[in-house]
């Protein structure tokens, strides 16, 4: 670990095949990839893999205060940073929270754009799927 790293940022090394976050468990951890490859598996099915340094895992479970919805496993040997009790760390490090909020905002923007594309633009559009109004209003906070 570089000397400049704060105490809450723990450097860890995982061997290929190690399960880092397990679906259905609540760890309160955030994992940030430094080097190597992680894959995401849900219900035994491969979802995605990444080698991008800086990729964050565990943020949804953390923010929603729910168990992990997928398993994160090391494909190669992996170097990463682990933040234990991450909610507490976020509370005292708003810039980290903002960084995560930015990533989430980008993802919400992408998924909403994809949903909007699939939305009908006029009443004659029978082939399209129409989201019930209550679904959209149920989102409560506005998509702007």
């Amino acid at each position, binding site marked *: 670990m570089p000397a400049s790293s704060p105490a809450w940022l723990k450097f860890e090394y995982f061997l290929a095949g190690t399960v880092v976050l397990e679906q259905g468990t609540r760890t309160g951890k955030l994992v940030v990839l430094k080097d190597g490859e992680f894959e995401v598996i849900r219900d035994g099915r491969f979802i995605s893999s990444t080698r991008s340094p800086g990729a964050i895992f565990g*943020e*949804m479970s953390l*923010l*929603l205060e729910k168990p992990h919805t997928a398993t994160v496993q090391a494909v190669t040997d992996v170097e990463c940073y682990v933040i234990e009790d991450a*909610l507490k760390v*976020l*509370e*005292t*490090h*708003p*810039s980290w*929270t*903002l960084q*995560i*909020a*930015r990533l*989430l*905002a*980008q*993802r*919400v*923007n992408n*998924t*909403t*754009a*994809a*949903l*909007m594309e*699939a939305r009908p*633009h006029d009443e004659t559009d029978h*082939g399209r*799927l129409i*989201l019930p109004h209550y*679904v*959209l*209003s*149920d*989102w*409560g*906070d*506005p*998509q*702007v």
Partner: protein
Amino acid sequence: MILESVVHFPVTVVGPHGTLVQEGQKTGRLYVLKSGDLEIVSDGSLVATIGEPGAIVGEISVLIDAPHSATVRSRHGAEVYVVDDPTAFLDAHPSIARRIAQLLAHRLQKTTALLVDMRQQAKERDDLVMFDKIFALLK
């Protein structure tokens, strides 16, 4: 919680049928509803109505540094707190930054689930169309 933090910020008044933010416009500002109602209109259709004081508007645009993806207008009129420097504001209010991150996580979960549903339905529809075509060939 949010309302307490913005109580000293300037308030803008949106008249009945007035517009706060235009789709495609980049304001760089965060808005917090003080009173009244706001309507979110995307691509000509109403996607949400907000009437809860303390509701935050514009956070995605601010966070991803992009133009607003929807128009925000008011039907009956509204008072809205305007946060000119959202980054400084959120830095100074970690709990609000966390609240926004949580709201975004919730929304991401919902939009992702809907998208998965829609793709599944689209696939089933395509399968049906394919079946019809094959069936027509067999007739």
